[in-house]
């Protein structure tokens, strides 16, 4: 029982991080109907910026406090993501109002390559580390209730907590604020949104900023776990099955989808692994997504697609 719970908790915590990545997709899709292929590149770009700023800025200002250095680097990287959002709107999206979804999708592919290229040429292509002082040592809990207690990885726990708070804030923002409502309006119909005086350009900047901040948080957390390197851009691919499962238009879907996939991966690895060989963790999520595509293409919480004929 103790072992099962340990696996379950480990899965939930990993799942929270998948949710965070998936959230980036959902945000932009909801607000502009674009599937943003550049999300992975944004995670990489933000993480690179964070890792390098944390070294450059203290050296330049002569600071020694790592906490201060990290804080400043985080803010600077956040500001950089704002600039990226503004440029994306100015140079790309503004010229593509009312275009087909496929056109916008290709545009985001372009943005992905530009971000990766510019990122590596400014920040270099080595492997960097982000050290934000995450607690590394695991901790035992509930030793009284179970024999041997439950072993929890503190780093994962903190990361999951941060992700959960961010996800909750974003959900509230979308559902409860006037700006959130305007964002949803733009997602549904550009032209109608314009006709009632919703400034499309400003909305897009806002949503890409928010997606940029989500990418930054995801980049920092994953970066401090895995190191900042080019492969971080593929972390976003882990978000894909999550959005298929949860539905591209649903924030709760991204959260629950992430958790299901996190838990599913860990449990299948541990319990099915011995029977059909290891390495299930790698393909489990995609397999689950395929099943969903067959039987429920809109995902668990997505809007059902009904065509009027």
């Amino acid at each position: 029982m103790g072992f099962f719970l340990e696996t379950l908790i480990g899965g939930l915590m990993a799942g929270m991080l998948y949710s965070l990545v998936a959230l980036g997709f959902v945000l932009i899709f909801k607000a502009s109907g674009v599937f943003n292929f550049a999300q992975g590149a944004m995670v990489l770009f933000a993480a690179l910026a964070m890792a390098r700023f944390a070294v450059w800025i203290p050296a330049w200002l002569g600071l020694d406090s790592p906490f201060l250095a990290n804080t400043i680097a985080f803010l600077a990287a956040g500001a950089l993501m704002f600039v990226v959002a503004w440029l994306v709107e100015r140079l790309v999206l503004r010229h593509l109002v009312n275009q087909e979804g496929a056109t916008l999708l290709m545009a985001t592919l372009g943005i992905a390559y530009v971000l990766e290229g510019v990122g590596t040429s400014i920040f270099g292509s080595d492997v960097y580390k982000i050290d934000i002082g995450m607690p590394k040592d695991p901790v035992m809990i509930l030793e009284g209730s179970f024999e041997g207690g439950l072993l929890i990885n503190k780093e994962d726990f903190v990361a999951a907590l941060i992700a959960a708070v961010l996800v909750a804030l974003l959900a509230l923002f979308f559902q409860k604020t006037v700006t959130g409502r305007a964002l949803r309006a733009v997602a549904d119909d550009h032209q109608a949104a314009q006709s009632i005086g919703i400034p499309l350009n400003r909305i897009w900047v806002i949503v890409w900023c928010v997606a940029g901040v989500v990418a930054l948080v995801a980049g920092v957390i994953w970066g401090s776990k895995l190191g900042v390197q080019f492969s971080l851009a593929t972390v976003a691919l882990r978000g894909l099955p999550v959005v298929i499962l949860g539905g591209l238009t649903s924030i709760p879907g991204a959260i629950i989808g992430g958790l299901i996939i996190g838990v599913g991966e860990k449990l299948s690895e541990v319990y099915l692994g011995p029977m059909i060989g290891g390495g299930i963790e790698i393909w489990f999520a995609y397999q689950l997504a395929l099943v969903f595509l067959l039987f429920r293409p809109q995902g668990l919480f997505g809007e059902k697609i009904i065509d009027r004929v």
Partner: protein
Amino acid sequence: MSRQIGEVILDLKNVSLSFGGVKALTDISFDVREHEIRAIIGPNGAGKSSMLNVINGVYRPQQGEIVLRGQHFSKMNPYKAAKAGISRTFQNIALFKGMNVIDNLMTGRNLKIRSNLIQQAFWWGPARREELAHRAKVEEVIDFLEIQHIRKTPVGRLPYGLQKRVDLGRALAMEPSILLLDEPMAGMNVEEKQDMCRFILDVNDQFGTTIVLIEHDMAVVMDISDRVVVLDYGKKIGDGAPDAVRANPEVISAYLGASH
């Protein structure tokens, strides 16, 4: 009728619009007076929707200008138009399908909301009061259009006729001074048409809203409008009171498709 038709509020001067080689509108001028119901009619492809899209700023005409309350606009855009008090409905309903009726109408209040993002996020004093005031206004629109029973229904699930009514509701929630209606009765049955006519007349009468509308149903147009503009192949072929337009030989031939 109690309402008084006022001065010219919207004046279109020599508007020409083309898409590549296709001339959608050629040198069209007409005016709209305050508080009147002004119809634009014409056969299919006459340029009626293009005309509406020019007023609302969706299309930028190559030539000509729009004078709105004495202010000249050579480049209108939908945002400026909305700020200037022009709201519109769409021929193919363009509602926010994922939202319920109330939220759709609330988006119509967007321009009037003053509280900032942070206040909204914390549901803080002024933001809260403001939201409640706007909500009250939206409820008035809902009562006016008699759609109380579907307030919380996602609009995607509503039948066509009701969606059209919600579309009108969203435009009304903006409290516009000029309302543009793009075929408000297209695809409706007789009963729904009658309802829609009644709403249009009531909006005009009770709120004094100036209405510019495109409609195919000639009987309806002649019945409710004060003055009618007739377009054919992007050119203006008639303008005046319904009876005068009906008697205009050019209009008759455009509609019957025969040259007499």
